[in-house]
């Protein structure tokens, strides 16, 4: 059976059913998920959508009721225990609830996954210490987890998951208990490992900023199913599902801005030659070029009310709301011509933008 080796993770038709007081609960419902080597794959969704359950299937901590789990070309469910353990050593995991060992120091916890390895005690400790430095906890090396703050515990869990230099890292809300600055540092660390060592990362998060700043691809889960997936840039700029739209909006201020603008400017009252337009542009199309094209080519004057540039997976994504003034025909032509350049436009005059559908 020739598996596509470029997919380091390949979940096929996964179903996980829990029996909750009699009635069945489909926590994961017929999910297919392929993740390429070196990818950083985000998973988002409502609380209780099945995200944790799904990622726990990847290293078989959760046996699926149905489906195939192929990691690194190996069908994990078919593996002998010894082989499964070997496979698991290559899959680091950061748990939502940390799961640190209370009987070991912080250093001891990070050392744990290295205990079986054939390296000297000193090497092991050095390695663990290096990781602790990376997460900013070297001072706490000899402290026991119970004496750490929530965020400190989480960072220990991160260091531990990285200790074995895994090929795949599963992170279940690994930054939820961290302040923004520490979160940034941790994300940079993950990104670096991804860049330098090709670490594949599967990342559950509730912070859209996290998805935008490090993920390449993202899947949106709802009631056990993946309802939308694709590159982060695509999903975040052109969400297809209501749920996705809701999530995306929480991270841009577009919807709030439109609300505020339409509250002060009555779009009905605009003169005939003016329109309130929402522009959304990705990549090379910068605000500058849009504006110059509009004004120079089509003799259209613009009045910017809102302009924001976001960086999504390294690409610039712009949002702009402006009042455009000009003749109807060149104006429509202008908007049409912008489309091939990756600029999406929407006339807000009465018609709500997608994000406003709620």
């Amino acid at each position, binding site marked *: 059976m020739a598996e596509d080796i470029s997919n380091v993770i390949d979940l096929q038709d996964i179903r996980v059913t829990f029996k909750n007081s009699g009635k069945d609960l489909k926590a994961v419902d017929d999910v297919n998920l392929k993740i390429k080597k070196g990818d950083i794959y985000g998973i988002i969704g409502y609380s209780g959508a099945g995200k944790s359950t799904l990622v726990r299937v990847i290293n078989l901590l959760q046996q699926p009721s149905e489906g195939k789990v192929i990691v690194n070309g190996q069908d994990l469910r078919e593996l002998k225990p010894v082989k499964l353990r070997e496979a698991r050593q290559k899959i680091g995991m950061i748990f939502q609830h940390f799961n640190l060992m209370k009987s070991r120091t912080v250093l001891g916890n990070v050392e744990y996954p290295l*205990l079986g390895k054939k390296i000297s005690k000193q090497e092991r400790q050095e390695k663990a210490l290096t990781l602790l430095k990376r997460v900013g906890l070297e001072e706490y090396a000899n402290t026991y987890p119970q004496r750490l703050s929530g965020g400190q515990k989480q960072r220990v869990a991160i260091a531990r998951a990285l200790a074995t230099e895994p090929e795949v890292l599963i992170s279940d809300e690994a930054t939820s208990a961290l302040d923004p600055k520490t979160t940034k540092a941790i994300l940079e660390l993950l990104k670096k490992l991804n860049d330098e060592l090709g670490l594949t990362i599967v990342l559950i998060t509730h912070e859209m900023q996290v998805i935008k700043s490090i993920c390449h691809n993202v899947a949106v889960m709802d009631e056990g199913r993946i309802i939308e997936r694709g590159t982060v840039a695509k999903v975040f700029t052109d969400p297809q599902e209501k749920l996705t739209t809701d999530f995306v909006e929480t991270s841009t201020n577009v919807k709030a801005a439109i609300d505020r603008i339409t509250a002060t400017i009555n779009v009905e009252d605009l003169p005939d030659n003016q329109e309130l337009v929402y522009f959304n542009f990705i990549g090379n199309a910068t605000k500058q070029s849009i504006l110059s094209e509009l004004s120079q080519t089509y003799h259209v004057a613009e009045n910017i009310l809102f302009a924001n540039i976001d960086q999504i997976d390294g690409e610039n994504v712009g949002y702009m709301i402006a009042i455009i003034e000009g003749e109807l025909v060149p104006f429509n032509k202008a908007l049409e011509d912008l489309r091939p350049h990756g600029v999406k436009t929407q006339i807000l005059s009465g018609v709500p933008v997608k994000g406003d559908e709620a």
Partner: protein
Amino acid sequence: MLQKLIPNVLQMKGEFVQATWETLYMTFGSAIIAAVLGLLLGVCLVITQPGGILEDGLTYSVLDKITNLLRSIPFIILLAVISPLTQFLIGTTVGTTASLVPLIVGIFPFYARQVQNALLDVDHGVIEAAQSMGSSPTEIIFRVYLREGLADILRVSIVTVISLIGLTTMAGAIGSGGLGDVAISIGYARFENDVTFVAMIIILILVFAVQIIGDLIVKAVEHNE
């Protein structure tokens, strides 16, 4: 003064010293081996039970039944039933050393149950974390169960050693000697109350010592956590 309070005791100082040694020998001699057997059995019970890391219904059910079976035998009958084994292992069925065999057999299933209960309290999430890191069952046993459960294991060990001290007092039946024997077959049976009293005081001191030292160790272990 003492002469009046404990007339019989004074005449048998030597016996008391020896009996104390015998009790210590029986208690700790059997404790060490029972600890090994009990830990082994307790761990096997935990890992093979439903939901355990090496879940195995049959093995669990057999071990569980053996544990109950051994716990069902009244000690005095155990002494008799076990005597061929004792003869084989020790070369005699009577005496202090011979008593180690029934003491071990009498206490280790009890200890195994206690260990099982103690290990059940180890956080399941931590076991999962170890599994996710590819730890083998042996590694999980030694590096997680026995380590995370250490404080609880120590606590049940204290309970067990004290129970064991109680058990040694019954081993007089096979000539084990010891403080219990002095208290019962000399002091109690002969109505030499001072002997009973002093023997019990010494037992008490042993029990307290076990509890206090045990508590200190538990504290040291937990202090860190």
